[in-house]
């Protein structure tokens, strides 16, 4: 790549209103990648990707084991909650920071498949930095993170010994978590809510917004990098992907390193917080060495994949409240969303520099967009300009 292009790329990003906050290691990666890739690979998606022939296994200068050490959750959230109705089959585990004023909204975050509430941790620190008053609730979905299943109360949740992972149940869970928090916090009324979901979580918050259980309390909802049409297309290659990824990691550090090397997550700081919650210790035979496996067996959720994403575009357009679709890389709208977008029915933002885990890859920019989105949709904050007739008085 020529110097001219590089200087252009810099100039191009300098022109953006908010500089893409690339973490230090991503900056370095970008340099490496672009040096070895042709101009066309940049042009095809505008996304940073490894150039051909570039060994991913090659150690990067900062790749010492020190830098892959896990980071605990408590610097990002005030507390964790264990929420449950009496005799309910689940004890929902959630990371929580209460809203500071009664007017402040509650951001309710739902992670994607195979992840946990900590998938948002890096983004949360930026959200709080920009808007210190807001509350944040990031729950672990059933079968994910530290949410516990109590089989003694949950026969109907099992099919052939496997947990029901349908979208309907996941949406029920999210509603339950919000209700339980209300009870737990002793609120008479819920604060205003902004729903934010990544990937599968995007489908869940869309379903919850569509049901409208919380009425006008849900100001708006945001969906991060999932579009029905392309998700459905992608499902075909999912099993191959799942079979190919490592099943066991020798250590948490190795898990973090894998996520970065495979470029699943492109931000070291975020991976150190989030990845440990995606993994759990594997019972070992000798009782000494501890290995780690995935908390969530994604392959067994495969019967639900079509259910998760089917009809999502329609629901997204029909649900009331402000809508934001945040996409990584390039815009991959399906027909319904394309028509909706060109009719001005929702806000679309594309982040060319991010991978699928937008909120992990570019947490600061994501946070800015989410705060701006909330403020725009919070009627109490928005002052509409005066009516034409009253101007000049």
């Amino acid at each position, binding site marked *: 790549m020529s110097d001219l292009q590089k200087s252009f790329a810099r100039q191009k990003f300098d022109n953006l209103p908010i500089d893409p906050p690339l973490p230090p290691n991503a900056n370095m990666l970008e340099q490496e990648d672009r040096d070895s890739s042709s101009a066309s690979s940049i042009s095809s998606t505008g996304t940073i990707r*490894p150039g051909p022939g570039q060994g991913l296994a090659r150690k990067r200068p900062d790749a010492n084991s020190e830098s892959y050490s896990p980071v605990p959750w408590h610097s990002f959230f005030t507390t964790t909650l264990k929420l449950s109705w009496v005799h309910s089959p689940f004890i929902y585990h959630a990371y929580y920071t209460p809203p500071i004023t009664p007017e402040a909204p509650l951001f309710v975050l739902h992670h994607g498949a195979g992840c946990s509430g900590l998938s948002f941790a890096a983004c949360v620190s930026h959200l709080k930095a920009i808007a210190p008053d807001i509350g944040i609730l990031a729950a672990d979905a059933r079968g994910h993170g530290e949410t516990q299943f109590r089989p003694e109360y949950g026969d109907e949740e099992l099919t052939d010994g496997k947990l029901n992972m349908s979208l309907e149940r996941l949406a029920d869970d999210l509603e339950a978590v919000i209700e339980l928090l209300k009870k737990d916090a002793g609120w008479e009324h819920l604060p205003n809510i902004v729903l934010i979901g990544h990937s599968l979580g995007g489908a869940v918050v869309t379903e919850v917004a569509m049901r409208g259980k919380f009425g006008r309390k849900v100001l708006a909802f945001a969906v991060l990098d999932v579009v029905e049409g392309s*998700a459905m297309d992608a499902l075909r*290659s999912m099993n191959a992907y799942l079979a*190919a990824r490592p099943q066991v990691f020798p250590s948490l550090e190795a898990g973090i390193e894998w996520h970065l090397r495979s470029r699943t997550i492109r931000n070291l700081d975020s991976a150190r917080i989030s990845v440990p919650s995606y993994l759990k210790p594997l019972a070992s035979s000798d009782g000494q060495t501890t290995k780690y496996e995935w908390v969530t067996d994604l392959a067994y959720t495969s019967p639900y994949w079509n259910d998760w994403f089917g009809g999502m575009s329609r629901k997204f357009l029909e649900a009331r409240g402000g809508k934001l679709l945040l996409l990584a890389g390039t815009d991959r709208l399906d027909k319904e969303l394309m028509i909706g977008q060109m009719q001005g029915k929702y*806000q*679309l933002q594309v982040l060319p520099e991010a991978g699928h885990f937008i909120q992990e890859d570019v947490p600061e920019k994501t946070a800015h967009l989410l705060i701006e989105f909330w403020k725009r949709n919070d009627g109490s904050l928005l002052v509409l300009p005066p009516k*034409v007739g009253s101007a000049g008085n």
Partner: protein
Amino acid sequence: MSNLDKAIAELRACRIIPENEVRELCFKARELLIEEGNVVQVDAPVTICGDIHGQFHDLIELFRVGGDVPDTNYLFMGDFVDRGFYSIESFLLLLCLKVRYPDRITLIRGNHESRQITTVYGFYDECLRKYGSANVWRYCCEVFDYLALGAIVLGTSTRLERVPSISDTQQTEDLTPTEDDTELEILNADNVITARFSRNRRRQVMDPTELTSSSPSSSPIQSTPIRNGPAGTGATSDSNGSIGNNGGAVFCVHGGLSPLVETIDMIRLLDRKQEVPHEGAMCDLLWSDPDDIEGWGLSPRGAGFLFGANIVKRFNHFNDLSLVARAHQLVMEGFKEMFDSSIVTVWSAPNYCYRCGNVAAILELGEDTSNGGTIARSNGDVGRSLGDSAFQNLQLPAEPRPGPGRRYRVFAAAPQDYKGMPAKKPVADYFLVSRFCRLGKKRQR
């Protein structure tokens, strides 16, 4: 044959021109555009077009249906680039025509004529792909900054002249000759009238097959008041005022109105030579949408505003306009009139993005020849000397002014030459994982 004519011939054949020629062209275009005001004055007759979005073959079809430049006087309301596969060819062809026939084609700016938007929605990538560098993109973006923000069409006729024979083929085996009181006509791509509405609703002639074939409206506004026209028209409602020959001026803008803009004059005062800002009057003009609300509302797009019927009617009244023509929103029927025909959306990208299944339209406004071609009507400057007080406590007249006669030509997507299109982007297995994981896996093995 001049270089410019050669370039036009090349571009018409959907072939790009060399980078140095693009540079020269953009330089000339800027010299021309810098002389134009923020609001260009255009004399009728004129054919008004909406979004193109790099759909080159459909642009050629548009010229076939509407007549070629310079025979037909065109006004394009922005969004020339992005999403389609031929943004370069489409925009450069329009720009060449602008430089070659400056008085026969007017280009105004759309929200996609912006560095930030083109970086994400395709034009920038296309420039890199076809030229190997971003220079052409940069030249074009510099031109974008000089595009006018709006246009005022003067001297329109309230009367529709008989369809001129564009192709000498089947003249509409009419249906009585067009009478003076025809307000609106809809023609298909073969120059055949499919619907006609008279100002006084004495006569309505429609081709029933055409009407039933139009799919249910998926227009931006779902609850359109009941009207007699086919989907997309509101013409028969109540703009049946007295039959005059000169309609008020027609204001053309890509998006819509702004709460910061009460008069056309205010637009003339803006400093337009910049990237489209994130807020403010210039942003609103390129981003706003009409909607069935009272007053102003929040735009779900994240930029600009929604504005209701009362806003449009006041704006038209204060500025002595009979119609606002705008683009920006996909309408499945190609065009959509709203608010008693005080505003129309024109959309000129058929089967948008090669998958939306919509038709496209262009709007022809005739010339008022009753005064020997002199223009008697407003130019949007009304009230200039009265200051703000002119706008206070003004009552809207009971009868809006009669709108100009409007002829819509509706057309479908042209057959596509798929050879030149880039292969479909690989499916991203992205819903759980990074789309580059599998690439990495392969290499590791």
